[in-house]
């Protein structure tokens, strides 16, 4: 499955968003959509588990988790063998 689809699924189950993830564009601002900092950590943990990666300190910031596209690029950087799209 392409990374971005996995990311969408994980956001749907761990992002605790008040809106349906399917309605969000890849570049939509997840914080504006209601992503809390607590949910973003749970999202990180789920992503680390699913892709067997570890986010380095430099990626642990708001920007990395600001949109579905940004998260997917970060994952793609850490898991080069995964299919991007």
């Amino acid at each position, binding site marked *: 499955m392409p990374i971005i689809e996995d990311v969408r699924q994980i956001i749907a189950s761990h992002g605790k968003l008040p809106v349906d993830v399917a309605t969000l564009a890849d570049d939509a601002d997840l*914080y504006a959509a*209601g992503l809390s900092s607590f949910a973003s950590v749970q999202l990180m*943990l789920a992503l680390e588990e699913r892709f067997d990666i570890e986010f380095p300190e430099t990626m*642990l910031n708001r920007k990395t988790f600001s949109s579905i596209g940004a998260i997917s690029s970060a994952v793609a950087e850490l898991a080069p063998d995964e299919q991007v799209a």
Partner: protein
Amino acid sequence: MTVLGSAKAMTLCERMRRVAAIAATHADAVDTAARFPREAVDAMRHERLLGCQIPVELGGDGASVAEISELCAILGQACAAAAMVFAMHQIKVSSLVSHGEEDDWHRGFMVRVAAEQLLLASATTEGGIGGNLRNSICAIEVDGDTCRLQKDATVISYGTEADAILITSRAHPQAASSDQVMTVFLKDQYTLERTHVWDTLGMRGTCSDGFLFKGEAPAKQILPRPFAEIAAQSMLAHSHILWSAVWYGIAADAFAKAQAFVRAAARRSPDQAPPGALRVAEASALLQGVKASIVAAIEKYDAARLDEDKLSAMSFAVAMNNLKIASSQTILSIINHCMLICGILAYKNGTPYSLGRHLRDAHSAQLMISNDRILGNTSTMLLVHKQDTSLYG
């Protein structure tokens, strides 16, 4: 970088020492009556310290975080409530300086804060959000060029005394609870209806009453950046550093009294070490720890400010949270030590060694933003963030 030896820093400190001298003479009256520290705030205006953080080109002194922290510590040694009012005002100014400089209205407002020595208050808490200021229930409504807001603000410190209030809300009526903005409302643009009275154990002079806030203002007074950014990039660090500096001031004054007590005893019987001498040494070590934590946090903040990624990194938020936890807990141990050293003269009010007010004021530190909430946030971040174990990381 921090240059506290500069002529500018020295004059800032001299000005604040004059304020502190006035604040000290009224501190007990402010505490007893739970009244606004008017004499101290008038003195801040007279010394033009309310605008000290505003950039020089806008009429202020361009004071650094280190310099403002020193000012908070100086005043904290005289009257903790006045020092906290000064710190809270400066935290609001930091939002303008850090996030409003490129916006015409907010630049003009900074000029006014410096020129007219306006006192800024904050309205970030709200009934029903459970103490988490990164959530709002109320929403600002923009109608053409006008914005309107009504908020059940359970705390607005010195709300009735302020010249303007910086208030958070959801960005629009359909926005998620965490999608917030902050808006400047001037005194003639809002009404306040008191809903809670601030009658507390300590920090009584901050007059942190609750109000129903109703305001209407030009929409251009909404700060141009999302509040999430303001909170993470300037408010978090400024709050924890400046509060800690005030708390350090309370503990440092208690320590000075305890040391004076022991020195007086030592002078009376030079051949005998006074009973409290060891405790003074212990308190000195604790006080040094608080001071070192604050200075280290200021240096970390100064370094991170040059790089937006560092400011929004988890390591930075964890470090600032840790400062707040450590300083708020340690000052209680220090003041308790000092109380043991001075004994009944510390416990009694109205003696040169009285520490009741210090201890009561210091107890607010663990509660203003509950340490449990902060530890909860830190523990969540530590699930993914690996703490740097180097000494000079």
